């Protein structure tokens, strides 16, 4: 059923992964800041978890670009 997939080049995997992570980073900002820090003890900028996600994704992008 999935034999046709066997022909796909392995370089596509890294490219798809990079695109996927970029899309996730963009999707994070579809969530309003007010929702992300709803009951946080303070409203400091570092508590905005969308930026935590962006930092995390940047590390992942580095990994998948390095190990290709």
């Amino acid at each position, binding site marked *: 059923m999935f034999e046709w997939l066997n022909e796909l080049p392995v370089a596509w995997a890294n490219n798809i992964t990079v695109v996927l992570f970029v899309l996730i980073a963009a999707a994070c900002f579809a969530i309003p800041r007010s929702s992300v820090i709803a009951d946080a003890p303070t409203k400091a900028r570092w508590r905005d978890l969308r930026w935590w996600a962006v930092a995390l*994704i940047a590390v992942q992008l580095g990994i998948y670009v390095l190990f290709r």
Partner: protein
Amino acid sequence: MHPLDLSIVVAYLVTITVVGFRLSKRVHDSRDYFLAGRSLTWWVIGLSIIGTNVSANGYVGAAGGAYKNGIAQANFEWIGAIPAMILASLVFIPLYWRSGVYSIPEYLGLRYNQPVRLISATIASVFAVFAIGVSLWAIALTLQTYMDWPIWVGIVVTGTVVGLYSISGGLAAVAFTDAFQVVIMFLGGIVIVAIGISNAGGADDFARTLMGENPTHLQAYLPADHPEFPWPGVLLGLAVVLSPAYWVGSQAILQRTLGARTQWDASASMMFAAFAKTLVPLLIVFPGLLALVLHADIEYPDMALPWVVKNVLPPGLSGLMFIAIIAALQSSIDSGINSTALMVTRDIRGVLVKNTDPESELRIGRWMTLVILLGGMAFAPYIGDLGGIYFLIQTLLSLFQGPMLALLLLGAFSSRATPVGGLITLVTGVAFAAILMAMDLNMLYVAFITFCYSLVVLYGSGFFTQPLDSEALKKLVYRHV
């Protein structure tokens, strides 16, 4: 075992027991016991999540997998975890938090119906008891290897230590001891990386030797026709289905986030855990690569980590690494018994026995924790003989993942998913997965096809069956307005 290693092990066991036992004074009711009185901070929960996640298979099996397949093994920690953890942090944890539930089956019970809650809790609980038995067996084997303890002594000692703090202290004790255990795990991992790279002649020589003899061992993805990890299967099966099903649906993982002091702490804990998760390959994948570079004389890949601990680390540090392995296994066991006790007490007994007394939940929860631990201990000595059966149980559990993820995703994002549709999807989705499995299809592809099937059935059934009323859906469907 060297006396220095032995003293480190004894100091660790005493510390973990005392810390856990002291936290038992905070427990006054079932909310304290199962959700730590909703008092936990984000970094404690984040470390506890990693402690729960890194299991026996993770520590020993991943090093063996890396020895065999290279850094592609780390996909379980990167693409096979990070996207799902971000989804859990920003969408599902706020949703579970707002709905006020104790467990994922309880959320499914509110979103769909009580049979869905009962089925999902029962399957998860049965698997958890087997998993606890496997972890106890793995610890007993490790103790036998390093300290010559008979298997049964290792099981009884481990069960007693874990039982003392888990039964008395509940989730708070489990979370704090997990956090302590993860710090030890990372210390052990960092030491192995530093000494290992030094022994290999530096980072450049390490990479050159590895790449020279194993050209694909530093590639994140393996070819599409690879028998174990074909890259389309890794992306479609692992990243799209199995990983999200685990990170948004595992009670053992998510229970500690429900014990956070605020919703922000709960979400931040998962994001913090994702940062730590990115570094986990240093602990569990690197030793496998190191064994390869140092030309370890081993019979099969799973011996890579024990070989590194025995041959690379000096006395004192090998004791630390020994504790790191024990800590990884203990943190999986304590989380397993606490979360399973919760599901049996509230999601199985609470549904089957009507008009239960909320006051008795703490007492019943503690007894259930003991019974589940004893069940795992009774099962543990036979794991070696039941290897094939355990693999079958794991496979059967994975049949459940596609339908489960569809229930959670559509349940969270669409009011179209209905209670009857949920039950139909769960039952027929598992049956469909079993048929596909019988056709000898790779498990990663089975998970993806079953997930797609379940999405279609659940959404389609919404046109013919009665939805929940809009008031009930308010807290159960994600809306960020």
